[in-house]
């Protein structure tokens, strides 16, 4: 495998800059576009890392979310958002960020980081070696998420089902009220 670290770092810097722009910009539409740029860069990074499955899903979902979010933000006449900075929230965030960094340094500082992608994890090694003979699925990712870990996938599908049910219930209630108001007028 050739060295892909420079490309990954370039994408990473691009993603960090895009995220900062998305947070700091005053225009809602610009924020949506920057978030989508970060998502597309992430899908390219997945391609570099040799994960076409995740890259395809990321790309397709990113397109759909971009359409939905643009449709949502374009309805607003006033796209400028006033940012409210809460000093306490910033302080708490910084404290927890420092704690996470501190614990990370405690855990990894003594042992040192393993090299990127090395060694192959013991669990994933079992999947890679036994996936094809056991499930006869040439795509290892599918054999893991739909055979070894099918229960998790069902939980994921249930989450999607429940969230859409809740969103529809909330939107529909408003829609019925709106219809009732329209009829007498």
């Amino acid at each position, binding site marked *: 495998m050739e060295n892909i670290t420079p490309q990954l770092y370039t994408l990473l810097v691009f993603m960090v800059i895009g995220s900062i722009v998305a947070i700091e910009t005053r225009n809602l539409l610009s924020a949506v576009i920057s978030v989508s740029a970060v998502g597309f860069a992430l899908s390219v990074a997945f391609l570099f890392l040799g994960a076409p499955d995740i890259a395809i899903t990321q790309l397709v979902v990113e397109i759909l979310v971009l359409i*939905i979010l643009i449709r*949502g933000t374009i309805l607003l006449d006033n796209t400028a958002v006033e940012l409210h900075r809460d000093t306490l929230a910033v302080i708490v965030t910084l404290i927890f960020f420092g704690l996470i960094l501190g614990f990370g340094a405690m855990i990894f500082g003594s042992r040192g980081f393993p090299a990127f992608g090395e060694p192959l994890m013991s669990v994933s090694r079992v999947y890679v070696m036994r996936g094809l003979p056991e*499930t*006869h*699925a*040439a795509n290892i990712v599918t054999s893991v998420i739909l*055979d070894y870990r099918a229960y998790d996938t069902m939980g994921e*599908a249930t989450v999607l*089902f429940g969230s859409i049910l809740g969103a529809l219930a909330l939107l529909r209630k408003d829609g019925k009220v*709106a219809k009732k108001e329209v009829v007498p007028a």
Partner: protein
Amino acid sequence: MKGLTLIVKTITDFVVAFIVVFGAYIVLYGHLTPGGGFAGGVIIACAFILLMLGHGKEVAFSRLGERLAHVLDSAGALAFLIIGWIGFWGGYFFLNVFGRGEQFRLISSGMILPINIAIAFKVGTSLFIVFAALAIFRRRSFRSMIEDELS
């Protein structure tokens, strides 16, 4: 005239069938090539959303009715669960009891292919429903909701 210009409508009519076929390919070959039920389902949903953007919601609902979308959404989730229950026939939940078949063939790897199809129906129709809900209820509810949120 509902929807966008004639150019967009013509291209949409031409392209939608290809997008659906590509999505079906991603779903059916999920166990052989990159892809699977989720990605393929989103691609199929994108085809119907393109139809809705280009032609307006009436045409999109005439191809895939709201009621049918609800039924397919629930049926996909239920089919996933039932396939999991079939595993009890061999021992435990989600046990791959179907025949594995020959490697690298379309009909192989037991219950992975049926689960992929079930997930594709579930994900595709539910994302279409989300977009349809935003398109239908946007006039008052969605707008007032966001304005309340911001004020």
